[in-house]
């Protein structure tokens, strides 16, 4: 019974940790906009966590510069299971306009499994909310898989 309660609660209380890997700040601003009174993602239980140890969903923005690559991998390892990785914007997906640069090591799925990828440059807040909501459902599935 407790396992069912825990799995149900997991979908309702996803805490976000945001990593900026050299983003232009556009996606970061839109992600913060999602938490403001106009869009209010807190009604689904989303909360911005201060440290990766508290996080359930890791949101990655930016084209992953060489400088931030090692830090990104280290931070992702610090997040306790079950965790979900969400890429936000076109940069972590493909490198966007920075593709081919000597200092950009773009696709994020080279370093970890990306569960949800929100496209757009920058994605609209509505798209981000939908993506994060899907991530919360995946989080629940991962928690249920841990029970078996």
């Amino acid at each position, binding site marked *: 019974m407790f396992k069912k309660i825990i*799995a149900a*609660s997991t979908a309702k*209380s996803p805490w976000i940790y945001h990593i900026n890997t050299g983003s232009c700040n556009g996606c970061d601003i839109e992600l913060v906009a999602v938490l403001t009174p106009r869009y209010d993602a807190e009604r689904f239980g989303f909360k911005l966590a201060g*440290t990766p140890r*508290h996080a359930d969903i890791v949101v990655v923005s930016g084209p992953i510069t060489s400088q931030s690559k090692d830090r990104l991998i280290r931070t992702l390892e610090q997040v*306790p*299971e079950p965790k979900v990785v969400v890429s936000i914007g076109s940069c972590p997906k493909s490198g966007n306009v920075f593709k081919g640069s000597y200092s950009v090591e773009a696709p994020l799925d080279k370093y970890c499994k990306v569960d949800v990828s929100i496209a757009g440059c920058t994605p609209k807040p509505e798209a981000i909310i939908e993506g994060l909501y899907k991530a919360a459902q995946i989080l629940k599935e991962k928690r249920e898989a841990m029970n078996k």
Partner: protein
Amino acid sequence: MINVLATIKIIVKTLIFPGAFFAMAAGLLLAGIDRKVLARMQKRIGPPVMQPTYDFFKLMGKETIVPHAANRRVYMAAPVVGFVSLAVMMLFIPIGGWCAFTGDADLIVILYLLTIPAVALIVGGSASGSPFAGIGISREMVTMMSYELPLIIVFLAVAKKVGGDQLFFGFRAITNWQIANGPMIAQLAMIPAALAMLLIIPAEVGTQPFDVAEAETEICEGPLIEYSGAPLGLFKLNTAVKMLVMTSLFTALFLGGITSGIHTGITLWGIAIVDHILRALIHVAISAVITVVSMTTIHAATARLKIEHLFKFYWTAVTGLALISLILVWIGF
């Protein structure tokens, strides 16, 4: 063999009402009301009232990581110690004029027990071995020092008011005095002390303007930085239960005896269960009102203070308010 029933009663009191289970359920409810009302004040829809409960159960199901630098035993034991002391405190605080354990020095016991959750946070944070936690625990210590002094003065003022020539620290004496003379807050001399107490509650719980120790945007939640999973959930639960304990303490000191008139006369196995349930419900409702007045409103209207401003505020304004009450009571108002 004689005391089997008495032992069962003590176990029920400690584990169910008004101990651990009641403290958990009511504390999480108050935390939920706080978040919901805060959201409505900011023109948001806000999370459901059950949100802190979901958070708690989610954290129970997360992986618990213990860092290499941490002292494992202290790191895992700290949140449990904090929760136990909070649950014990609920046994001493009267709910509708009735308390599980009574003595002649309840307020002094509570003063000591009240430091334990903060000390647990400090010990747990320092056991995690993170430099951010180091900054957090030094701030937590300063916060503790700032609110302890006015809190002691408020307790002294109440004890002197009840005792007359002596100091009465027992909750039974305080509640009986208030049943006879009306709630403490209606006394002119005690209004500054009540205001001081309302300002002490947010610092003790650690909500917005006074959450310097757990500032998530500057020092990544301070002492809690390395915690994850079940111990983190317990620390979050401690914060919620602290809300219940502090608001109950306010009710007991300044609004005592309001619900003691409830007598339905229905008993089950010799215990007036219906009376207890009614009183507990009214008690939680009063606690919710105090939570909104003292924590949510201030939270919605202010930004985080610096630690030196917090210290200065408590040792001047709040201590001053409490002292006014103490002096007024001492000269006979």
